[in-house]
């Protein structure tokens, strides 16, 4: 198949960017989107041009490193990461618009690569549990309700790709933050820091310059891991509870 790419090109963080049109003939429909970009980059390199900068790592949909806006849809038309998106999802002859995640807290580094270290700082603010180290405790000594375990696991599947922020009309990272708050808050090991965790993480979220959540749900529609919308309510509930208890 033949496609036309319109890609965001930006040489560095402080330079002006623009959309560049690149004709891409002879694309196999079995290629992943990233493999297609690899082919484009090979051709650009052979022509002596600068290849398109794009982040990727595991290429099996579990690390959250790749991620771009494709036709203004985070990760493109399939609910999976860009490495798991295949060219058969597009039409022969289609023009595909590719842009980086856009948010004040995600500055563009180069082309399609953005700096997502704001996420790391949100996690560092409270996305952990404090437990004494040593040999692993007997699993049966801390029973967890099946429903809680399932719900916590749903939330724990977040890979921090940033699609929620890119899709959010407010540039909010609420789904990302809520996933971690729900994951740890529903488990017994997360209880001691449950109140301080949510407050610290939300404070860091706001400090990083992410917007406020307006409960529109665009984030959940594009999340490759299907993090449920109800985690955001759980975050709000935990936060109000912590504030009312004066934590």
């Amino acid at each position, binding site marked *: 198949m033949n496609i036309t790419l*319109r890609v965001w090109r930006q040489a560095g963080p402080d330079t002006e960017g623009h959309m560049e049109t690149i004709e891409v003939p002879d694309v196999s429909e079995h290629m992943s989107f990233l493999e297609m970009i690899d082919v484009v980059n090979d051709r650009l390199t052979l022509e002596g041009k600068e290849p398109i900068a794009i982040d990727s790592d595991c290429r099996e949909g579990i690390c959250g490193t790749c991620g771009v806006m494709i036709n203004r849809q985070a990760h493109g038309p399939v609910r999976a990461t860009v490495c798991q998106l295949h060219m058969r999802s597009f039409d022969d002859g289609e023009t595909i618009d590719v842009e980086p995640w856009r948010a004040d807290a995600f500055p563009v580094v180069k082309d399609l690569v953005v700096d997502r270290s704001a996420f790391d700082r949100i996690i560092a603010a409270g996305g952990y549990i404090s437990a004494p180290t040593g040999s692993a405790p007997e699993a049966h000594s801390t029973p967890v309700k099946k429903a809680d375990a399932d719900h916590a696991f749903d939330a724990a599947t977040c890979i921090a790709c940033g699609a929620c922020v890119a899709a959010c009309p407010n540039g909010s990272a609420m789904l990302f933050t809520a996933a971690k708050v729900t994951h740890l808050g529903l488990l017994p090991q997360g209880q001691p820091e449950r109140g301080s965790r949510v407050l610290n993480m939300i404070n860091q979220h706001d400090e990083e310059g992410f917007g406020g959540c307006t409960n529109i749900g*665009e984030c959940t529609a594009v999340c490759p891991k299907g993090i449920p919308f109800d985690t955001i309510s759980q975050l709000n509930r935990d936060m109000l509870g912590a504030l009312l208890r004066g934590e």
Partner: protein
Amino acid sequence: MAKKVIMAVSGLIMVGYLLAHMYGNLKAFSGMQAFDEYSHHLRELGEPILPPSGALWIIRVVLLVAVVAHIWAAVLLARRSWTSAGVNRYETRRNRRGIQRTYASFTLRSGGLVIALFVVYHLAHLTWHWIEPGGSSPSPYGRLVAGFSVWWVVALYVIALLAVGFHLRHGVASALYTLGAGTTATARQVIVVLSIVTALVITVGFLLVPFSVLLGVIQ
């Protein structure tokens, strides 16, 4: 985050007020005497514990605080969102309406402005009597019938009520989520239904009276 809680609480106070206001309006179907008595009774509400018009003034102050807080929080949150997301953030023209968001979710800011302007006009008409379309009358019922006999008064009312309907379709659910409701998928479905029902009840409930006047059911 505090601003969102203020937004949610002040919004829900106004929804409560709208329901009471709508109930009062529907008294128009009981005739002139019932409506005027109800209107007069609002001023005596709470007497003799409260002074004349005391309860009315408490409602007015609470409402005014809610309106000011709601607008203040909305302006700050909107400005923050424009900084965080950027105004023209993506170059592509495709999928500009998002992936699954409701039409109502687009109307919160513009619709809120429409509602605010309407409220000023509405007070100027029926509370302050600065304007008297359709002619003046000593009776509240008379002013209502005279006003709604004018087509453009009804048209403005319809525009405002549609804005209110969309505002509530998204706003009621959003407020409840912000206050921590909807922590399961089922609870969220219940909240969505609740917000649709609230929007429909308030929009239809308020529109019954003007259309009844226009069609001659209320004279």
